């Protein structure tokens, strides 16, 4: 019954879909690159950033990864450009630029 879900798409005939549309894998949202939806892009001004990490906590798509106690570059493959990080930043270190 276990099916390679990367082979299922919107053209798959019903016989080849999984039972109850079960997804036989973990962390599958990684494969869905929602960054494609973005019309405005957050840009970090490193000079203003104090590494308070508020942006990382408020990001609804976990697109601001943390590494060694510091926030690192945006995950633009999945960032939808919602702008919450820019609103939340206490130091105006994130700017939303038009386009991708």
């Amino acid at each position, binding site marked *: 019954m*276990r099916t390679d879900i990367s082979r299922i798409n919107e053209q798959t005939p*019903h016989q080849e*879909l999984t*039972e109850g549309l079960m997804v*036989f894998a973990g962390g599958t949202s990684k494969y869905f690159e929602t960054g494609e939806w973005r019309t405005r892009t957050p840009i970090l001004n490193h000079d203003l950033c104090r590494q308070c990490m508020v942006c990382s906590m408020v990001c609804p798509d976990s697109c601001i990864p943390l590494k060694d106690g510091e926030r690192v570059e945006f995950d633009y493959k999945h960032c939808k450009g919602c702008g919450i990080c820019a609103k939340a930043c206490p130091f105006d270190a994130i700017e939303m630029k038009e386009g991708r």
Partner: protein
Amino acid sequence: MAVKDRMSGNEAVAFAIRQINPDVMPAFPITPSTEIPQMVSTYIANGEIDTEFIPVESEHSAMSAAIGSEAAGARTLTATSSAGLAYMWEELLLAASNRMPVALALVNRALSGPININCDHSDGMGARDTGWIQIYAENNQEVYDNFIQAYPIAEDPQVHLPIMICQDGFITSHAVENIELLEDGDVKEFVGEYEPEEFLLNPGKPIAVGPYSVTNYAMEAKKNQADALKRSKEVILKVAEEFEKISGRKYGLFEEYRTEDADYIMLIMGSAAGTAKQAVDDLREQGKKAGVIKLRVFRPFPADELAEALKGAKAVAVMDRTESYNGNGGPLGSEVTAGLYRKKIMVETVNYIYGLGGRDFTVQEVYDIFGELEDFIENGKAPEQFQYIGLRK
């Protein structure tokens, strides 16, 4: 070796549950099925089974918990009646679309209103299009036997659908009658261990259950679910054959009683089928060619098989123990005539409504119905469709 005993229908279901020893039972009590979780709790308290009982705060939660536990990989069941089943409505559909082989002991009771605790089939019939397999019983023996067959049907890889094992509230649930019980070991072997291929609590093999489906997937998912329900018919028959080997008792999609040469047939479900059989025996003694078909499997509906079984009759009384409020008769009446029409079998059918809210259904009433059918064919006097049996006028 079979054990001869006597018990009520609720006791019989609880006894079957004890023999199966399922993993999880979330339940909320409601008349007339309350005794089932009560008795199962007693078995658990006495250490006879190790089922995890979850006392939930409502039937909505009972079915939600049942879906969650079944998805986690545990063999799960619950029991309910009437408003309890109605309150599960949303979750019933999810159990089926998520392809969870949950078992539900339904003790049929009228849906309100008027508020009533007694038997009719409005609860089960209300849930007839939720994607569940539905099997109805004539007496305590049948509900016991059906419950033992429930998991082998529902868990079959060709099926993976939830199953409702139904019996008539009070009429069989609270009536003590003779019964033949199977040995614990035979039941255990017959039902087997639950070994789902895919389940949530399976380290290293993660799955997601019940994902959102965009339009592009919804119809395909429903088609697959409908196909599984259709396939369950073969599985129900295969399991019945296996069951006969351990019990000596034969089951099919329906039972044909003295119909081989019958001019007049009553099609009926549940406890009233016994009353109808008694009446048919009496009518046969008077030389009347009467017979009974007792429908056991309502879902999947054996439309073609029923049409074939009815084709030799001159007239058929189709008995519904529910009012559908559609101006076009009860569910059984509608579905069986649709099946006959598609097969171009044009026997006369009269759809009767009986036994609502626990209204008694007697041998005399069966005689009268057969009398009407005969009068219809012999004298052309067409009976009123959808008439209520035993109605005060």
